[in-house]
């Protein structure tokens, strides 16, 4: 009697696990990875390191929220790293000239949004592909960052501004809270609003979405504008953490964000973009980096490992897919 009951529960645990693996294999992999690292890497599973880990992924996490929408609609954005740099500098300059933190933050965010708006408008209205558009804009924005800053880091004099990036609440640093809130907001936007559903539909089949009465151009422009605003905000947070606006920061950040999303199972061809995937992708990237630092692995090797992880993850996903359709 009790034997069968045990079997039963074993069975359900097994199917539950299988289900989880099918739906979000990366979550499973992350859990295993996390447990493994906790056991084998000294200092890994300590409160201090966990907070450090959270802090290190917060920037990528915030921007991954909006990059998720970009990817979901079948596009991507290579200019976010430059918006981060520009907005940080811009914010610093505004604070130094006006003395107002609020104006500085608003300026940084709106500056980013404006670049996003330009990206989106060119892509949607002129029909130029996102790769070229955001690549071109990336150069322009980076250049503007240097022009605004005069070529070097802009130190910020207002101490109250540093609280955004360096303060903490209930023991957790603010950037971590901000990232969590972003994931919640954009998760809801993606799954529970017309904005999210239309974005997914567009990525799944642009022409069908247009014929179904979705204002595809408007949605595209909105996606890129919000993306720009978010990158701008990330730039502001970064400037606050570094107490200065740095025009040459964050090189390679755009690809980090895109890699994290893809790692979590977001499709580059659009239409498939689970928010939990983006979260896990960001965490895996950050965790591996963190563990490698703890183990004192030289930076050169870290590049190799990170690239390999991305490729393996994509391959595993591909394998799962082909396997699934031929069961």
């Amino acid at each position: 009697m009790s034997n069968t009951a045990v079997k039963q529960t074993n069975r359900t645990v097994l199917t539950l696990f299988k289900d989880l693996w099918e739906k979000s294999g990366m979550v499973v992999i992350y859990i295993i990875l996390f447990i493994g690292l906790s056991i084998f890497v000294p200092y890994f599973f300590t409160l201090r390191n966990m907070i450090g880990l959270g802090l290190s992924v917060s920037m990528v996490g915030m921007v991954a929220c909006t990059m998720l929408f970009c990817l979901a609609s079948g596009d991507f954005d290579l200019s976010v790293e430059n918006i981060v740099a520009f907005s940080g500098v811009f914010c610093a300059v505004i604070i130094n000239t006006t003395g107002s933190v609020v104006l500085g933050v608003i300026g940084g965010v709106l500056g980013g949004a404006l670049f996003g708006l330009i990206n989106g408008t060119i892509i949607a209205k002129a029909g130029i592909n996102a790769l070229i558009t955001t690549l071109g804009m990336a150069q322009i924005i980076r250049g503007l960052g240097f022009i605004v800053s005069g070529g070097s880091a802009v130190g910020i004099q207002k101490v109250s501004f540093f609280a955004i990036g360096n303060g903490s609440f209930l023991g957790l640093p603010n950037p971590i809270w901000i990232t969590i809130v972003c994931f919640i907001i954009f998760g809801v936007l993606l799954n529970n609003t017309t904005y999210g559903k239309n974005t997914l539909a567009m990525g799944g089949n642009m022409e069908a979405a247009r014929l179904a009465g979705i204002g595809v151009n408007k949605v595209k422009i909105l996606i890129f504008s919000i993306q720009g605003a978010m990158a701008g905000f990330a730039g502001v947070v970064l400037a606050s953490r570094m107490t200065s606006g740095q025009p040459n920061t964050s090189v390679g950040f755009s690809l980090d964000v895109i890699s994290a999303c893809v790692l979590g199972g977001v499709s580059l061809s659009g239409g498939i973009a689970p928010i939990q995937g983006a979260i896990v992708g960001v965490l895996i990237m950050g965790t591996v980096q963190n563990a490698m630092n703890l183990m004192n692995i030289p930076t050169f090797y870290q590049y190799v490992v990170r690239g390999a992880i991305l490729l393996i993850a994509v391959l595993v996903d591909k394998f799962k897919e082909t396997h699934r359709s031929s069961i």
Partner: protein
Amino acid sequence: MTPYLEFNSVGKTFPGVRALNEITFNIKQGEVHGLVGENGAGKSTLLKILSGAHPPTEGYLSINGEQKDFKNTRSAIDSGVAIIYQELYLVPDMSVAENLLLGHMPKKYGFVDHKKMKKIAQDQLDFIMEDIDPAKKIKELSIAQRQMIEIAKALLQDSQIIAFDEPTSSLSDKETKRLFKIIKNLSENGKAIIYVSHRLEEIFEICNRVTVFRDGERVQTFENMKEVTHDILVSRMVGRDITDVYSYRPRPQGKCILSVKEVMGDGLKKPASFEVKQGEILGFFGLVGAGRTELMRLIYGIDQKSGGKVKIDNKPADHSSPRASVENGLMYCPEDRKYDGIIPVRSVDENINISARRHYIKAGIFIDKKKEAENTMKFIKQLDIKTPSKDQLVGNLSGGNQQKVILARWLSEDVKILIMDEPTRGIDVGTKNEIYHLMYNLTEEEKGIICISSDLPEVMGVSDRIIIMREGEIVASLNRSEFSEEKILSLALPVDEEKNRSEINE
């Protein structure tokens, strides 16, 4: 004659779906074997097993007495199997010649031999009697022409087994006749041919035997076409009798709901004017390329018109985007479901509610998942959409069921005028009947329907009035009492082609 291709207890299971169960039957050389069944009965799945695209879950197939265990499509092709799929798989930006020879282009010194390629392509086009420049890009061709190219491509291999999956669903009469000539020719040359279609007349016209599938099971194989009638076939397929698939019923008509005046644009030769009344089903008939779809695209705002006025309920409705049209109650159900209709990587639920969800939005942006699910379940039931659940990806449904999903998308909207472009393409008789009923019901609620169809019996069966287009212009409008096949065809055919027609018919 001995069987050439045999299926032995073939079964296939997809997650949550038993697509085929214990299928055993055979195909002989020199015969055209019909395969019929409802949407989702498993016809395409069987062909995909034959093509090596899916391995069977159980059972096996054998060719010429030899058991085959195809690992991939390449090995099936090498064993002499050619399949013409229900969906087109051509590369739109490549030329006709390149598409025909994709994968085995002739080479000279390691480079593509363009001259030879062109020659082979031209010969093949001649063989299917298609007058197209092999240098033309696929995207410049009509759907019917693309379908013929797909056929030409498959036939290039000189295969012993050739399977056609609904090849005529996007062909006009003219091309269908040509295709049948080709098929007869192939069977006389000893090929074993499988022919899948929802158009039962065709089965009677070219098949020597016919097998009926239902819910993944083989119901029956009729050895002699003389023993079986249209009605028997239908009742074996659907499980009930359908005496008159159109079941036309007259309905009252009201005031003019859509008025199109002198509309002009790409694809039209002369400005087009017509009206739709409340309660009316207005048929649009014409050959491929007559400009019917082009005209509707202008009215719906997909393409921009260069002149003319559109009014809905006597108010200007010159829409420049589909979105504006939808908000004004004008909906368009596209003819090419793969490119313009479905979003394959999203669920049945999301595909159906993509437009109608705007009616049950909360707080401006939040969707109402409960209402959407109710709507989906209603249509899954009403249109008999075969799917394991509302969350199944649409890309995993059978062709006909995908079409039903798009119909459901618009039937769940608040329409005033519904433009249906080839609404029953690839849909089985049982469901056709259901869709016609829905059309009558809709028009009884004072809506108007424009029904574009290349299927003449269908246009004649459901329309209150038919507008005939020819080479980019409207040439006539006939009331139901004036309908006759002869009259409509002679109006639709280009003047110089009328002579050819009598030749083809022989």
